[in-house]
């Protein structure tokens, strides 16, 4: 069986789950829930993107929200109607104030641009090992943020960029999340994905096996940057309004917690962590506004979401480094569980022979 068909088959269960979520929310049809589900799909796409890089290399990236921002601002600048742009960014450089493109070319250009920037930045980051690479990603996040907030002619600075055509709907979010899932899974199981994971397990042995470590890191970084760009485009074309703060520490922190909670080494872990935190933060959000539970009027608790995310990162790092799924995919866990059951059954049927060492 080819890699693609095998990956499709292995991804069937999570894809069905995502379709079920979208179907359920649409059948209820309440705008608030649709919005929550859409944002879930944006974050899921982003976490899959982050998984491609972090799961492959074993290095943390604090810079991925910047890719989301680059793609979001690209579509914003290209797609927003000219009349509005004359108001928002009348002095845009490169004649961009007079450019107005349709959705498809805007999205394609945004993805290509994000990919090119990711590649160039990746040339530097892929050569660094471990902590140095991680710090460089943080620097990248800050640099991009500084550019967004200070290049006022092009990005409007810290003020919101609004009026982007809201052409997207829940099915876009669903589609993007499924595409991101398939890319992440295909990459993980591909020969190069396996080589990259080998290098994160044992760098010296991987080099001794001819693994081109830097080139593969660059590949993973660029690919995950492009997928992250999809998440940025989803955001811009749904909300219609973006600001530099949408792509900074809060977002970085959120997707990092989601990935770490589920386990960064597997795509299933990414899905699992995003689901748990999305549900959890909806619950805490309602607590923040001080709801009435069983007749008791609870006080408003602002900042609870941030506290909750921080606590998750600390707890996972101290008690379950590899995340909820321990770095395994759903189907691998299922296979191991079946094997265990089978060997347990064999043992009892063979009238309990000598205990086998695991």
């Amino acid at each position, binding site marked *: 069986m080819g890699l693609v068909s095998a990956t499709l088959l292995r991804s069937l269960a999570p894809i069905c789950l995502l379709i079920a979520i979208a179907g359920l929310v649409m059948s209820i049809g309440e705008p608030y829930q649709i919005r929550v589900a859409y944002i879930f799909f944006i974050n899921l796409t982003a976490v899959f993107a982050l998984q491609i890089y972090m799961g492959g290399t074993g290095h943390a990236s604090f810079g991925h929200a910047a890719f989301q921002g680059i793609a979001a601002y690209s579509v914003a600048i290209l797609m927003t109607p000219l009349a509005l742009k004359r108001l928002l960014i009348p002095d845009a450089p490169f004649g961009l104030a007079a450019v107005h493109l349709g959705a498809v070319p805007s999205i394609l250009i945004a993805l290509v641009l994000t990919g090119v920037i990711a590649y160039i930045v990746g040339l530097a980051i892929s050569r660094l090992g471990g902590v140095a690479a991680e710090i460089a990603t943080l620097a990248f996040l800050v640099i991009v943020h500084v550019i967004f907030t200070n290049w006022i002619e092009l990005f409007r600075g810290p003020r919101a960029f609004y009026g982007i055509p809201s052409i997207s709907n829940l099915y876009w979010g669903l589609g993007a999340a499924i595409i991101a899932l398939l890319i992440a899974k295909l990459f993980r199981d591909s*020969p*190069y994905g*396996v*080589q990259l*994971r*080998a290098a994160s*397990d*044992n760098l*010296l*042995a*991987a*080099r*001794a*096996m*001819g*693994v*081109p*470590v830097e080139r593969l890191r660059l590949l993973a970084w660029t690919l995950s940057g492009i997928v992250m760009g999809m998440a940025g485009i989803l955001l811009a074309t749904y909300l219609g309004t973006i600001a530099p703060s949408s792509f900074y520490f809060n977002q970085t922190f959120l997707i990092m917690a989601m990935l770490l909670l589920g386990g960064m*080494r597997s795509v299933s872990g990414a899905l699992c962590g995003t689901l748990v935190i999305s549900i959890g933060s909806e619950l805490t959000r309602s607590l923040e506004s001080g709801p009435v539970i069983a007749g008791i009027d609870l006080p408003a608790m602002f900042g609870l979401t941030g506290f909750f995310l921080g606590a998750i990162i600390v707890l996972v790092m101290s008690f379950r480094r590899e995340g909820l799924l321990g*770095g395994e995919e759903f189907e691998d866990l299922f296979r191991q569980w079946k094997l265990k059951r089978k060997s347990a059954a064999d043992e009892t049927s063979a009238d309990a022979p000598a205990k086998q060492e*695991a």
Partner: protein
Amino acid sequence: MVDGISKHFGGVYAVRDVSLTCAVGEIVGLIGPNGAGKTTLMNLISGALTPDEGSVSLGGVSLNQAGLSARAIAGIARTFQNIRVFGRLTARQNVEVAHTSYLRDRADKRRDHSIDEIMAMLGLTDDAQRKASTLPYGQQRRLEIARALALAPDILLLDEPAAGMNEQESLALIESVQSIRDEFGCGVIVIDHDLKFIMRVSERIYVMNMGELIASGTPAEVRQDPHVIEVYLGKKASVS
């Protein structure tokens, strides 16, 4: 193949002016007491360390400018004394890592062995889908050999492949090494500090002590060498 190579750590030479050859299809033994510099020599050959002096070449082509992964692709494959399997990957994926390098970069693909053939040859078929970190010690050593073979090397370097094995297992290993040589047609350099094991497996032997080469020749010649008797056999006799 290796000419006048040296490496020192601080003021101490770990390997000093060592020259060594290994022909394709030959099994060469490298023996010496603890700290003799065997592993350091292997690191110099495989490109894990850069020498202070001397050169390494393969088939007349100098590899001095090539790093570890470039040499792996050029045809020098190795195992590690302290096991370094890719623990999170399955046994089969461990072999796949090397096979991918081989498929991508080797120009000549004459010795085309599939991943499954190589695993079968080393008795790893039943463990193919197990995670490498969960394999028993001996299987992990075999997995390292399988992985190195998937590069279709011209020279295979084995650093103490028999470490931790009992008499019976090391006899089986000797047979494996010989059939690997026959099947893959590669040269093999085997390190060990057990003289009996090295005598059985190799056709030619180099003896190292304190970073220097003190003797070389056929097993029979080396056994007669007064230096070897003094430094190595004498020491061994006093130890055991």
